[in-house]
Each structure stands twice: as C-alpha cells, then as structure tokens.
C-alpha cells in the first residue's frame, strides 16, 4: 500500500541503492586499476548509464499509465525527440572537424547538397537552447496530441492505438532525408559537449552521474506529483473517470498536464542517452520500442514508480545478456517474461519483493490487511 510519508520504504531503499551505484560505479571505473577484479571498464559504465536512462523513461510512462490509466504506446517518440534535440546540438558542435570540413553544415547535409542550414537547426549550436528543446519538443508534441485526444475523450485501446500511430508516423518522417534529420543514418560521429571530449573517461563518468541524478530526480518529481491531491485525482481518473467528472474535475486538463510532464521526462532520458551511445537514428521511433517500455513497467510493477525503474533495469540487463548469449531467443524470452509476470505477478517484481519482505518481517502491514479484508 502507498505509504503517507514522502520518502517511503520503497523509494528510500531504491534511492539508497541508486546512490551507492552513482558513487560506486564511477569509483570502480577511475580509482581501481584495470587488473582489479572490481574494475568497471568505461564501456560498462556507459552501458549502465544507458540503462539508467531507460529506467527514467519507464518512470515517465508509469506516471501516465500506472497512475492515470493512459496506456501510451508512443512514449518512445518523446524519448527519441529529446534524443534528437541533444543530437542536433552535438552535431553542430562538430563544426569544421567533420569529414567535409564545413564549419556550419553537418556532414550529411553537405552530402545531400544542402546550401544552408534548415531553419529548425538554428539555435542548436547553443547548449542552453538545445536543453530547452529537449523539454519543449516532446512537451509540445504531447500537449498538442493530448489536447485533441483527451478533449475528444479518446480512451482505452483507441488512445493506445493512436499513440502507436503517432510514433510510427514520426518513424516514417524521420527516415526521410528531406526531413533534414539525417535520414535513416540519424545523427552520429559526435565529438564533444561543452568542450569536453565524449570519448574521455571524465565526460563518460559525468554523463553517468547525470543519468543517475536524473533518474533520482524523476522519481522524486513523480513521487511528489502522485502524493498531492492532483495525484489522487489521477488515480481517481484511472479507477472511475466519470466519478471524477461528476465531482467537477476537468479530467482532460489533468490528463494533459501529466501527459506533458511525462513526455518531458522521457525527453530528458533521451537527451542523456544519446551522448552515451553516440548515435540517434529513426529506429528509436519504432513502435516496438514503445511497446517494450510498457513491458518494463508491467514487469517491474505498475503504479509504483520504483517498480517501473526496476523493471526497466531487469529487462534491459537480461536483454544485453540474452542477445549476446542466445541472439535468437531474446524476443521469445521477453514475451515469456511478460506473460509469466502478468499471470503470476500482477503487482510485478516489486510486488513480489515486498511480499517476501513482509513475510520475513512476519508482521503484515495493517493497511494491507484492511485492503484484503
């Protein structure tokens, strides 16, 4: 059951573990010698950093799905837009060091015969502007999309389908060279950010720590939102939308707000992801990506925020292990995990952990007993 303290046991434990990882992994990378058994190589550090971005993305989805019942199958699009906004800045940072040596135009534009920079690439040479766009691009898309969808009271499966259509449409659009986002190759060959080389260990560690902080921050923002009366209205919308309306709440405004905040959070995750993996391409918009986020959240435990983050970490870690060990089995394994969790663990992995924890402490929490009564 949801506890009433701001940092409850669940969040406290997760944040403590996250703090250990935030300090421990960079230390193990920089302070320990490569011969040491506990040394974390830089590629591994960035891999974990990437997982943390996925975890933030899962928290963003849980905020709308777990708490408000909006099953978005298009959250990958917000992540990708945040990623593209950051990628555009990194592209412009390359400057005349590109293969064609053009001081303004990125390589792919020179290759495609662009005479000048398209209007929407202006401003991205400034870091602050790119950061603003990391929030605004996904936020604005979510706002406009949500404004139409929620006002027309599109809900349930229909809403899920149009979110999926949204990300698919963007996938097709970003694939086109004429769009000016590098077509199917996307944006890559990044050199540095704010003057720091992206291949240096120091930059890598900084990006890692920033990702961990963003995840922690996302969890705290999510926790704050869901603890307020606003958050309780969201749960009301999820469980009995008409009751909320008849109490005088304008449900569409509540949905719109949380959907937009969630999209921005996803955008931040994407922006931190791109410099760590060194590329962003239209594949990030693929509908399958968005569906996978839903699986993370369901597997970890929907409507708990922490569970969503946990689910993402478990699945992506399992994915990188399985795809290298048994490349063909991954999709089946993912499907199987999803089915097993849905059938046997409706509260997700987090629910299981907490149940086991309660069993060990023997004394069941009073609230939980009443809830089952």
């Amino acid at each position, binding site marked *: 059951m949801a506890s009433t303290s701001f940092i409850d046991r669940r969040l406290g434990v997760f944040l403590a573990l996250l703090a250990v990882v935030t300090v421990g992994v960079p230390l193990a990378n920089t302070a320990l010698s490569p011969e040491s058994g506990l040394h974390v190589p830089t590629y591994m550090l960035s891999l974990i950093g990437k997982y943390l971005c996925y975890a933030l993305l899962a928290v963003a989805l849980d905020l709308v799905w777990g708490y408000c019942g909006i099953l978005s199958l298009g959250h990958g699009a917000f992540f990708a837009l945040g990623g593209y906004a950051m990628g555009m800045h990194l592209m412009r940072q390359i400057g005349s060091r590109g293969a064609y040596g053009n001081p303004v135009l990125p390589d792919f534009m020179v290759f495609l015969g662009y005479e000048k920079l398209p209007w929407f690439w202006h401003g991205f040479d400034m870091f602050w502007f790119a950061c603003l766009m990391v929030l605004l691009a996904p936020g604005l898309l979510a706002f406009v999309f949500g404004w139409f969808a929620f006002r027309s009271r599109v809900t349930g499966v229909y809403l899920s389908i149009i979110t999926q259509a949204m990300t698919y449409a963007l996938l097709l659009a970003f694939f086109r060279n004429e769009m000016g986002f590098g077509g199917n190759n996307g944006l890559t060959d990044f050199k540095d950010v704010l003057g720091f080389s992206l291949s240096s260990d120091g930059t890598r560690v900084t990006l890692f720590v920033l990702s961990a902080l963003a995840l922690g921050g996302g969890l705290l923002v999510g926790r704050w939102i869901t603890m307020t009366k606003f958050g*309780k209205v969201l749960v*009301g919308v999820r*469980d009995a939308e008409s009751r909320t309306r008849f*109490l*005088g*709440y304008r449900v569409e405004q509540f949905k719109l707000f949380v959907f937009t905040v969630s999209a921005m959070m996803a955008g931040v995750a994407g922006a931190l992801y791109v410099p760590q993996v060194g590329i962003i391409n239209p594949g990030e918009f693929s509908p399958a990506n968005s569906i996978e986020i839903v699986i993370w959240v369901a597997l970890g435990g929907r409507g708990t925020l922490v569970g969503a983050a946990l689910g993402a970490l478990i699945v992506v870690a399992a994915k990188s292990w399985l795809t290298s060990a048994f490349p063909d089995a991954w999709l089946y394994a993912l499907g199987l995990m999803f089915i097993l969790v849905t059938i046997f663990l409706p509260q997700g992995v987090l629910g299981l952990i907490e149940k086991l924890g309660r069993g060990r402490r023997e004394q069941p929490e009073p609230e939980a007993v*009443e*809830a089952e009564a």
Partner: protein
Amino acid sequence: MSDEVRGLKGTQLYLNDVHRSFDGYKAINGLSMVITEGELRAVVGPNGAGKTTMLDIITGKTRPDQGRVIWAEHTDLTKLDEASTARLGIGRKFQKPTVFETHTVEDNLMLSLAGDRGVKASLLFRIAKAQKARIDELLELVRLTSARHRLAGSLSHGQKQWLEIGMLLAQEPKLLLVDEPAAGMTDAETMRTAELLRDIAGKRSVVVIEHDMDFVRALDCKVTVLHRGAVLAEGSLDHVSANQEVIEVYLGR
C-alpha cells in the same frame, strides 16, 4: 406546464418538454418537471422508463434532442458538460455505486470537498482545519468513522452507497440526484438512508430515483411516476398509487 414557470422564484430545476431518442427508441419523450428549492422528490417508474437518462440529461452527460433544462431560473444546462454542472452545484450518485476503490474512505471525501478543482490548486492543495472537521462530520453522518482509513473498495455494497452520498454532500451541492440508493441495502440500512435523505432535503433539493416502494413511502414526499420517458402521474404516493394508469403500467405488474 407553461413557460411561465421559468420565471418563478424558488425553482431549482425546470425541465421543459425534453426529448431524447437512441437509434429511434424514444428514451425521453416530452418530459417536463419542476423541482423547487429544498424539495425532496421521489421518481419511480418501471425498468427502462428513462429515469437514469433523465439524470444524464440534467448533468450534461447526454444532450437532449429537443427541450430545455433550466437551472435556478436562468442557466441552460443542455449546453454544459458533467464538470460544469457539478461546479454549478449538482451532485450525482450513480445507480451502480461509484467510489474511488483504491483510495481510502477519507481520501474519497477529501477529493469531493467543495473547492477549486483546477490543476494548479490540486497540485498545491493542503487540507485546512475546517475541511478536516467537515470530513469528520461527514464520516459520522454516513457512519463510516471507523472505516476512514480503509480502502473504499473493501466496503460492503451498502457502505459504498453511503460513502457516495457522503461524497455528494462534501461537494455542498444545491441539488442531489440520487439513483437507486437503497439497492443492496438491508431493511434497516434502507430506512436509515431514507431518514438521511429527508434530513438533507430542506437545505438542498434532492431527487431520489427508487424502485423500492417501502423506501419511497419512508421518504414521505411528492412522487413522480415516469413511463416511456414522460410523466405519467405526480402527487403523493397514495394519490399516484390510486391512479389507474399507474397501477396498470407499474404497480400492478
């Protein structure tokens, strides 16, 4: 009923010749009715008579094809949605009890308390002393004080009905629309509900839809009999029960 009623003082709600059909079926067919301020009114009628649809139209959930619904002498309700009619002061209890099952009883009432319903106000909301006291009072009234920290989903059917009535009262509405409140209640609970609704009336207008004749008798108020989407008879329970048409379509089933 004539248009003059519209100007009358003391009218809380006025339905004038309202029509609504679904795929050619006339669910509401020339319905007119006046509810005065503070009045308690029972609406009865066989299944499918259009009782719930009438409430849908009053609350802006369903738009009438024709006719007018006037609130407090001047506002036309047919242009408004559910949230707007709620904000005007119309509270509605659904036929199937609808509470927030995963919230505590207390939070259900907190969410219903009158006040700013905006996004910003909800984000910054802090409960005031007076509001806490009001919740205590309501819990006492609907006899759920000992259940205040329980999840609403764990309540019995009758308790959910009462919680929903408590939520309605928390809204401080001018008019309560109560759809079959006694369903699933024991006889004792039914009688207490009738008593509760009688107490509420006077300060607020109350329209109660009900099938249970003992309950309607206990309400001891003017009764409107609905049949095929229109008023068949209106008056005291004894008066309408003596009406030959009413006996045929409804009471004498």
